[in-house]
């Protein structure tokens, strides 16, 4: 008997399709539908129209002059995914996958969400295309992102609290997978990051690659050359892979993914998987073989980040591969650094970034000062910070006022460099 030896969806040694048998049929159906969607020019044109007329693409590239000046003259450009409809890059993926669901004849979509941005983007696209929508969300995340829960419900989605495990993103994925195993004939699972079993990491990368394609053309138009560095935050890694995908072949562009350093890597309370010192090991979670935060017995660890969207124990397999081959570098920014970068961007550029995106800003600010004038840094501003205002407010020092700006904060904080072990100023969750 001949066996099929070629396993699709591999990125170096990572990725693959580690799914329960009940999901193998739906995953193969999805793979076929995706390939035909990709090859169909009319379908691609329709996707293009949705991205332009509904999402508002292309999103601008903003030269951040005051931020650059504050950092000693490095030229920082911000790719403004925060200006996409619903306020984050997530909508690029959900519009594409809702079109795909419709093409497969599925009238119902389900999704997991952490910060709520993917849930809102799914509910939005589903409403606009007349699809039934259910979003699974960890109870902890529902508390810290209450506004997004309300937004989803306004958009007609059913939000289902998940109370198992750590009550965060990974548990929401578990619940969505269970739903899909039972409902696949009429339901599409709209996975929100470049994660999960094949073909999801490829589908999400392709749908998010519009970020990189636009940014590459925009920075070439503005500067006449490619950036020295492209930076993005990495939770599952969809905004980062979307940005990186356009520059992977350009050896002169350094790619840096910024993970959630939480309270510091050595505290164990973080969500870094690829940054040096993260303690992650190769393993399988949610259908993909990747770097995974786990204990010595192969049980998945609970993670911590001030930003719900980065609070996940595994990383997209293509990032694991880019790290393994040395094409991209991964570092961590702590909760405290992200909060300070939030302040910095607010005051220098008049932009409130999502706490997730603030991790990327934190690294750019840090490195920008080292690089100095003449270097160009492209930062993906994956989302806007309105959803995080409550968290920011609760993280303020008791007397109010701004935190010490990042640019005055000295040489510490990133893993692989000097890691700050400073405790956060006070409890972030105020019940």
């Amino acid at each position, binding site marked *: 008997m001949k066996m099929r030896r070629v396993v699709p969806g591999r990125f170096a040694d990572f990725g693959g399709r580690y799914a329960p048998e009940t999901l*193998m*049929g739906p995953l193969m159906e999805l793979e076929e539908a995706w390939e035909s969607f990709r090859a169909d020019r009319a379908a691609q044109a329709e996707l293009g129209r949705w991205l332009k007329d509904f999402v508002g693409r292309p999103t601008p590239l903003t030269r951040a002059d005051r931020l650059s000046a504050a950092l000693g003259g490095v030229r920082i450009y911000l790719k403004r995914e925060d200006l996409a409809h619903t306020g984050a890059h997530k909508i690029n993926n959900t519009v594409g996958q809702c079109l795909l669901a419709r093409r497969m004849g599925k009238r119902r979509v389900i999704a997991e969400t952490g910060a709520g941005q993917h849930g809102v983007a799914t509910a939005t696209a589903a409403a606009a295309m007349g699809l039934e929508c259910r979003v699974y969300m960890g109870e902890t995340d529902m508390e810290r992102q209450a506004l997004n829960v309300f937004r989803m419900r306004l958009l007609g989605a059913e939000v289902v609290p998940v109370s198992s495990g750590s009550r965060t993103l990974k*548990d929401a994925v*578990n619940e969505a997978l269970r739903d899909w195993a039972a409902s696949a004939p009429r339901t599409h699972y709209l996975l929100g990051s470049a994660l999960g079993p094949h073909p999801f990491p490829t589908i999400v990368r392709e749908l998010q690659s519009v970020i990189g394609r636009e940014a590459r053309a925009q920075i070439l138009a503005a500067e006449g050359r490619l950036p020295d560095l492209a930076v993005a935050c990495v939770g599952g890694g969809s905004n980062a892979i979307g940005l990186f995908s356009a520059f992977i072949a350009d050896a002169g562009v350094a790619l840096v993914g910024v993970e959630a350093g939480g309270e510091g890597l050595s505290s164990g309370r973080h969500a870094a998987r690829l940054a040096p010192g993260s303690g992650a090991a190769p393993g399988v979670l949610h259908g993909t073989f990747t770097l995974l935060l786990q204990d010595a017995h*192969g049980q998945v660890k609970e993670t911590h980040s001030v930003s719900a969207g980065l609070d996940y124990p595994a990383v997209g397999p293509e990032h694991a591969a880019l790290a393994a081959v040395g094409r991209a570098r991964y570092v961590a920014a702590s909760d405290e650094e992200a909060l300070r970068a939030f302040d910095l961007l607010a005051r220098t550029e008049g932009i409130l970034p999502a706490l997730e995106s603030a991790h990327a800003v934190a690294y750019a600010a840090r490195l920008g000062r080292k690089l100095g004038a003449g270097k160009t840094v492209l930062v993906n501003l994956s989302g806007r910070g309105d959803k995080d205002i409550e968290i920011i407010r609760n993280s303020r020092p008791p007397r109010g006022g701004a935190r010490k700006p990042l640019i005055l904060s000295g040489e510490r904080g990133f893993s692989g460099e000097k890691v700050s072990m400073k405790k956060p100023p006070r409890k972030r969750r105020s019940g």
Partner: protein
Amino acid sequence: MDLEGILRDARRGRPAFIPYITAGDPTLEWTGRFLDALAEAGADVVELGVPFSDPVADGPVNQRAAERALGSGTTLAGILDAVAAWRRRGRKTPIVLFTYINPPLRMGLGRFAERCRDAGIQGVLPVDLPPEEAGEFRRVLAAARVGAVFLASPTTAVARLPLIAEAATGFVYYAARLGVTGESRTLSASLARELRALKRHVRRPIAVGFGISTPAQAAFLSRLKRHARARNAGRGQAAAAGRLVDGVVVGSALVRIVEEHPPREAARLLRKAADAMVRAMGGRE
């Protein structure tokens, strides 16, 4: 006798009864006692679940069991030690481990296979490892002479059945319903038809699970014939040849007993429930 032989065994005159419990629920010490109860009630094979932090193929009952087991400090290594200790007490009932692949991966697949062999494990069912990804897993298990069990489900494409049948050296486990493990009030109306179709493509023995929770359901599966119109062929070889289902797995209904009762009482009730299943399926040989 290897797993395949046990499931095929004609002398039994009925499918193998395969109860499932989660190892370490509520503690590994009690798992040994529960295994005693199931063996004494006439279990032909026991399926022992390895608790995992993210059991995506399991329904709420088994999820909670995994949480209890992890809460009491259960590890894969500890489970293998506990099975070895159970064997040292002279227990012969074959054991199949039902596991998500990450704990064995973390242990190292080669080491895992050897430790399974040394502990007296007859088979492993890797619930989130389809045959397409199972190359190394199959090699190390075969080298250690431990059986591999793979799943088929109502959504499995016919084109993949030969791959599953070839990979499964113990038996093929058919998930009787879409979705996750758990109890069902009624079995799918198309189950018999699905199983007959499966039997045409799969020479290995077939066990049925996911949603089997009552003696009546177990009895129904035991009576199914390979050909829809076949008469009852009686006992012995002829009956085995005509039998559609070679094993019946009952899980969540038993795990629920462990959840709802103090352990000592649970051991007694497990034995009672297992005994009722065996009798409904046709009794002890």
